């Protein structure tokens, strides 16, 4: 069987060549390489990720409950009624990644509860694979609750902030 290093070399060589398809067989082990091919057998791993996503996607629906169950005295006072809650705007994560409340660890958070925000106010950063996405409020209003913690992994579509629209 080929060593991983040899396979790497092969990939490089084939990439630089005009060969589009390559097959190699030895002692029952077989390597097939195709250039510019969409589906790979490894795609098998993806279903895991996909099945995870729907589970996480349910979180938004459960969220009103989560808000009500929070034991913090502050949210007790401001505990929104059901109709109130629906009027709140949710800022959701557009991708899976790490939630950062501030531009760097030694700086203040972009926003805190009670802050006024406008359309283009940056409220947080989501990072994945060193791609940084500055999330804007996209509404005018006041931050009522912050639903994610600094450094936490958030899912696609997960609510990050509740904003009382103006």
């Amino acid at each position, binding site marked *: 069987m080929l060593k991983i290093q040899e396979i790497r070399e092969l990939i490089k060589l084939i990439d630089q060549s005009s060969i589009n398809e390559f097959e190699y067989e030895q002692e029952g082990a077989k390597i097939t390489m195709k250039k510019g091919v969409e589906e790979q057998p490894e795609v098998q791993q993806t279903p895991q990720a996909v099945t995870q996503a729907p589970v996480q996607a349910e979180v938004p629906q459960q969220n009103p409950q989560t808000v009500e169950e929070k034991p913090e005295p502050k949210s007790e006072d401001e505990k929104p009624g059901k109709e109130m809650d629906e009027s709140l705007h949710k800022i959701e994560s557009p991708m899976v990644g790490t939630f950062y409340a501030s531009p760097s660890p030694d700086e203040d958070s972009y926003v805190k509860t009670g802050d006024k925000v406008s359309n283009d106010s940056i409220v947080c950063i989501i*990072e994945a694979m060193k791609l*940084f*996405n500055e999330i804007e409020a996209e509404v005018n209003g006041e931050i009522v609750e912050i639903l994610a913690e600094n450094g936490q992994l958030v899912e696609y579509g997960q609510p990050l902030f509740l904003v009382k629209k103006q």
Partner: protein
Amino acid sequence: MATTIREKLISLLSDAGGYKSGQKLSEILGCSRTAVWKHIEELRKEGYVVEAVQKKGYRIITRPNNLLPGEIKHQLNTEKLGQEIHYEESVSSTQEIAHRHALNNAPEGTIVIADEQTSGRGRLGRSWHSPKGSGVWMSVILRPNIPPQKAPQLTLLAAVSVVQGVQQVTGEDAQIKWPNDILIDGKKVVGILTELQAEADRVNSVIIGIGINVNTAAFPDEISNIATSLKIASGTEIERAHLVRSILEKMEKLYTLYLEHGFSPIKLLWEGSAASLGKRIRVRTIAGELYGKAQGITEEGVLLVEDDLGTVHRVYSADIELTQKS
């Protein structure tokens, strides 16, 4: 962007055909001989050595190692990438300038490049050492028609492009440390940081910031054991414009492949240059540390790390350290 007279002039004087007379240059460029002469004087001020021989004409015999648009565009073989170049002698960060251009509808493939960055940035607000004249500090604007959650794949694509460009120009085999740090001899030579301008369901622009230590002779003490340059690694001075051209050409090819066939072919190439796969690594995140074996990456580019109890963790954001030498 239209080719400027200067860019044409550089190209004409670099032709293998030899000398061009002042008369001929003025005809081709459509300006007076005095204007031609002024342009040539400008080139000389920038470090070009322009030879002038009576009755034959002019030709360039030595090019300065600069990153001026004319120098990069000369022989650049791309459709989009680098066709519009914003060059700055010194900027705070090319990412900042690129953001402004992206918001002002700069076309896909526009690059911002500088000879010096006074506050180059890394991950989590860290600074990136980018001294004058020695590196390539640039930002590339892409506008892919993909949902925002796929955009992180482009950071891995960028890493593969730079590895290929470095290989072509220097002959050095660089390796990628997840997700997109580029190492030679285990030391960092390139950093890539990408920013996204997006709405909830569509990408406006992806701005890929690439910092390359090219001809850096030495590094400050605090980073000298973890950083290197192409010159230190290869032992020769590298022509920066050539490196930029090569990276842009590789990136355009891979980007076209990506838009047509998705991430799978990019993943294969990425794995072909990966430094950490199969090895023990330390994963540091803002939430804590994790030790384990780097198993591979998913179809999204997420790193899979198996800890000592056999649990596989999906890592989206972290600093990786190789704890095991190859």
